[in-house]
């Protein structure tokens, strides 16, 4: 349903004001990173970045670009605030899951700077919902310092095969070992659980692998419990890129296609397991 005039506001001098016809696009991206209660939102002229962290070891970022919105206006260079992500997601989902085809909930999101609440106005089929979520000061987020130049190994593959592998991982194992190498077995995921060692190999010439560029053999272990939050964005995505840098940090980038064929990205960083590294 096209954007209704009911969402038009009289004063339009919010620091951040965005409008989107289909709130579900934003909802799916936020749900993919909702493994903790709170998230930090960074807004800039490029769009929104929603960051969720855990244990100072992992970080997930959902990028909602400004061109996804029908209207996007920001008065500052960068606006940051912390908000309860669970509540945010619940509000976006206020009209529930299924709806008659063609009717989508429209969203207007407003934020007026430090201390003011995040205001969400949602409308679907003539029903208007008004949400006001308190915001907090944004904490410093981790900077994994993962730059493209430091990347040693990179594999881009279709998400479905990695999805299957992750769902069948032996959860009794503490760690997941990722081996990436220009030589066989090329890409190997290993677990060491109660029942023995399991390996899953994906060769570079598999039709699931779209891009394979590994410069040296590297094996790194990551705590399986920390990687678990990455399963949600993995399931929602079409493609995934797995990269490791010289320090052993892992960067997963998930390419998600929204309902109206917009391409969005969710990024996931993880520190290597200390006990395993040399």
């Amino acid at each position, binding site marked *: 349903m096209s954007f209704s005039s009911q969402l038009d506001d009289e004063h339009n001098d919010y620091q951040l004001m965005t409008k989107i016809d289909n709130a579900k696009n934003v909802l799916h991206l936020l749900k993919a990173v909702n493994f903790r209660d709170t998230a930090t939102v960074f807004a800039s002229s490029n769009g929104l970045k929603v960051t969720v962290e855990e244990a100072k070891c992992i970080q997930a970022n959902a990028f909602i670009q400004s061109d996804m919105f029908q209207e996007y206006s920001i008065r500052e260079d960068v606006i940051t605030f912390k908000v309860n992500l669970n509540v945010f997601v619940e509000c976006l989902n206020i009209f529930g899951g299924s709806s008659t085809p063609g009717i989508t909930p429209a969203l207007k999101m407003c934020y007026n700077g430090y201390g003011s609440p995040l205001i969400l106005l949602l409308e679907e089929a003539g029903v208007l919902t008004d949400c006001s979520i308190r915001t907090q000061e944004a904490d410093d987020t981790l900077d994994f310092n993962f730059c493209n130049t430091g990347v040693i190994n990179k594999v881009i593959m279709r998400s479905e095969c990695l999805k*299957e592998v992750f769902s069948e991982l*032996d959860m009794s194992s503490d760690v997941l070992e990722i081996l990436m190498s220009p030589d066989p*077995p090329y890409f190997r995921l290993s677990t060491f659980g109660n*029942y*023995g060692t399991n390996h*899953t190999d*994906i*060769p570079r010439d598999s*039709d699931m692998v779209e891009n394979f560029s590994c410069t040296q053999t590297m094996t790194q272990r990551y705590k399986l419990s920390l990687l678990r939050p990455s399963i949600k964005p993995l399931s929602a995505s079409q493609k995934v890129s797995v990269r490791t840098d010289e320090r052993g940090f892992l960067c997963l980038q998930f390419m998600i296609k929204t309902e109206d064929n917009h391409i969005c990205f969710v990024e996931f960083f993880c520190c290597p397991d200390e006990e395993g590294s040399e």
Partner: protein
Amino acid sequence: MKCVIPGINIKVFGRAIHSLAKIGEELYVEPSSKGVAFRTVNSSRSAFASYTFSSGFFSQYDDGSLNQEKDAGEETVKCKVAMKACLNVFKSLATLERTVERCKITLDGEEDKLGIQLNCRHGINKTYNLSFIECETLQAVFDRESCPNYIQSQSRVLSDAVLNFQLNQDEVTLCVSPEKIIIRNYVEDEPDPAKAIHTVLTLEAGEFDRYNITGEGEVTFCLKEFRAVLTFAEPVNLPVTCHFSNPGSPIIFTVDNRPMFEGTFVLATLAEKSDSQISRSQSTSKQTAQTTHTPKTVPRIRSSSQTSINRSQNSTFDNMRSEQSTLRRSDQIGEVSSRLFEKRASLSSAHNSSALQTSSQSSLENKPILPSSPLRLARASTTNGNTSHINMSMREMTLPDLNGDEGEREEEDIPGTPPAKRAKKFIFQRCFESTFNPEDVPGHDRVLAEDSDEGF
């Protein structure tokens, strides 16, 4: 040993593993020149299951006997692995069917590893390395040909029949006659028979493919284990054959698809009702003995506690629950299992040796009159087998004497293991109660000086 299962047979193999997993906790792998057998037995030794896959089932089969550099006298490796580990590999049958193209199973005698390699679509390979323990052959002693009664039916008929029974139904009785078979659920003596659900299903002889029943009779066996047979047989649409004789002798179910594979399930059956009467009176007299003669509780427990130790040593918490359901027939099974299992087992693991001992002593098994409450208690304590049985007897002390005075039986005083601390507390309860009551002291209501720490 090395064998390769082609894609079309993988689902069947996975089903066999699922079916074995419903019975036992350990999977015995026994390769031979003709094929491989995968066997298991349940923890109370009352059910044995075996699937034999001949070399025709595999696209490649090498039992390792043709290895050149073999030391003289070295046999092909016979081993057992954890069932859960194996089940983990074949967890999702739908995924197996969809993605796996080949499955290679290897037994590496040097590394003590059972390797399962799944070659999946898109070039993906999954390798599972499971550690195994070498062991001797697991073989149940039974003679199918000597059973006078046998019936063969389509698995669909039997699964439809079994659908009518409650999911938590432990045992069913097959009452056979030359014209028909009546399947009914086995109800233990409930305090109120009117409250129990009775399910009775009649199958005429015509429903079976082959029907050879010599006389009247009934056999009672565990439904859960029978369901494991049917969940394998029904999807592959194979007929199931049952061979049985009199109560107490094992019932043998076969799913036959030779030369490719064959599945055999041997389940113990309940012995005659008269035997159970005797053992019930045994426990009743124990009960009366216990209410009057506390010290005698200890000696009588010894024999039953030994069996419980054996059980708890080799069973996990889950098994305890299934064991308790088979408690009723455990003493009959004692006799059955001594005939059932000729286990030439290595005595390295304690439970192996004690399994044979179980047979002679389990006739003295403590049988609770009201199964419900003692069973719950026994479940609560899993680590110390001693404790669980003593708790059962303690509970019986507080139960009303249902069967009246049956007269005490003379039983020898076997010096027993000392009772657990909890039993002591129950017997010497008064000692732990405080006996000093400050209000008994004369003049306690006259306070000469307040407590200095009052109002603190």
